[in-house]
């Protein structure tokens, strides 16, 4: 058992604890924070496997963005984020779904990679990852990005208001600040204070009016 194994076990335990806390916590914000811990723990697991790039992506995308968006959504919506008890009353169903998912995933993983030995001391460099994504697997990658784009457009369409209730900015009084375009040989300053007048060059405009 090397030092890395110890770290792996510790990070794994932390991740698992975070996951358990996520589903058992009665406070929605606590649950979201526990989820962030879980996601960060997964980044730690990647790190132990020397997948630095993946770990950092995990941090940026999941901890930095997804968890924040979760918290954001919780705080902006009327979700019960206080001390109110939180119980979805669907424990049986949830248990069944998650248990089934666990069995399926673990079986898949064992079947696929069960006898592959990964050399833990050398992770793939980013050049390898880059070539893999943009050369070998470029089609699935582009497909995925199309999917994301569709989701993006869909979200915008959903979030858009109808015409009647548009949240356009209210009319604000414009205040012109700066040097008034006064020329001493020209008319009084009141004449050049108007909006249309201000568009003209200072010299000729005032003179024409006078």
């Amino acid at each position, binding site marked *: 058992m090397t030092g890395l194994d110890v770290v792996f076990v510790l990070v794994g335990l932390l991740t698992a604890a975070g996951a358990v806390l996520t589903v058992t916590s009665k406070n929605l914000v606590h649950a979201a924070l526990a989820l962030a811990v879980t996601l960060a723990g997964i980044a730690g697991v990647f790190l132990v496997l020397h997948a630095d790039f993946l770990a950092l992506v995990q941090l940026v995308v999941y901890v930095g963005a997804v968890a924040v968006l979760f918290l954001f959504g919780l705080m902006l919506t009327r979700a019960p984020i206080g001390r109110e008890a939180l119980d979805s009353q669907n424990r049986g169903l949830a248990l069944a779904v998650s248990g089934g998912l666990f069995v399926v995933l673990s079986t898949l993983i064992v079947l696929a990679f069960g006898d592959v030995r990964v050399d833990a001391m050398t992770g793939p460099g980013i050049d390898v990852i880059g070539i893999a994504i943009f050369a070998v697997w470029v089609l699935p990658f582009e497909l995925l990005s199309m999917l994301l784009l569709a989701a993006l457009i869909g979200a915008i369409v959903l979030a858009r208001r109808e015409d009647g209730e548009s949240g356009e900015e209210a009319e604000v009084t414009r205040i012109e600040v*700066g040097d008034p*375009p006064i020329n001493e040989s020209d008319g009084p300053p009141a004449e050049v204070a108007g909006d249309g007048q*201000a568009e003209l*060059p*200072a010299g000729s405009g005032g003179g024409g009016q006078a």
Partner: protein
Amino acid sequence: MAQTSLPGTGLLKGLAVTVKHLFKRPATLMYPYERNELAPRTRGVIALMDENCTVCMLCARECPDWCIYIDSHKETVPPAKEGGRARTRNVLDRFAIDFSLCMYCGICVEVCPFDALWWSPEFEYSEYTMDALLHEKDKLREWADTVPPPPALDEGAEAPAEVTEAIAKAEKELEAAAQKEADKAAAAEAATTEAKAGGSGPKKADEPKVAAGEIDQETYDALIAEGKSERIARSKAKAAYVKKEKARLKAEADAGGGDAEAAPTPKAADIKVEAGQIDQETYDALIAEGKTERMARAKAKAAWVKKEKARLAAEAESAAGAGAPAGEEAEPPSPTDAAGSDQAPSTDAPAEEPAATRKLGDVHVEGTGEIDQETYDALIAEGKSERIARAKAKAAWVKKAKQAKLDEEGGA
């Protein structure tokens, strides 16, 4: 913005304005080390000259806040001469102003018929407890020492009535003494040369003012001998002592500044002094006077800065006057130290004086507000009120000026 400007010029303009200020001299007044020159009648604190108070109670009655507390008792004064009638007079027992309540309206100062209440520009009397803001008679009397002389009249202003009277009187005397003119002129010349010798010599032993401590005692004795009450004599002698002590300290400071060594970069235009040191003499003097440690320290710091500035100014002057010894240039300001207050602009005084002396050919110089210090001190020591002493001292000064003028004409 002007309508033709590119987008973003406004942002650059903002940056330009701020960075311009970065290289400007800060407007900050380094308060405990530098002070504002306050007007002589700034509403800082109300001072009491209790010897002027007749317990008429006008101030206490007019006070909108009722923050003046006066207690008194009546004393029977035996008849002044045989066959007279015994009279009663009010004796002030307590005079207190509650500065936590006072609204600084100045009505008490205005209504006082005997000039017992004065405004002093001092404002540094914050306290840790509120009852300490109730200033009793002694404290109020101390503030009276800080009252600066009144501001000079405007150029060409009509002189106050008492001054014109005194001048008329002096002119009569002058005409009467016309035959003794020559003797007096000689005496005056001798006096001025003596004064100049005293000024140029850095040794303090030569100065007649140094013996002030004994004069203080003399004043006291004189007053007692004149039949003044012990209390009045003591307070006046004390005032005289404080005044003289301050004058002496100033003279010493200037003498010390004369032979000082070279300072870094003496710029004549604006002298900046890095503060942080205190003037030990002032500090000791203030502590001895019973001021609090904090106030003494602050004032000593201010005194140090003042001295340092005077010293630098003197050095700059001597540097400008190529070869003139520094000691002569830095004339002691003590002869012009008007009322012995520490607020008097000591650095300006020596610069003004020679200019005024040169202009003496003009007889109409009397409105400038110069006073004859010796006369003034003598009158104060005699127990005259400050106002009268000032007026008479002005008259004396005019007299001397005229003599000097006559001398000059006679010489020519």
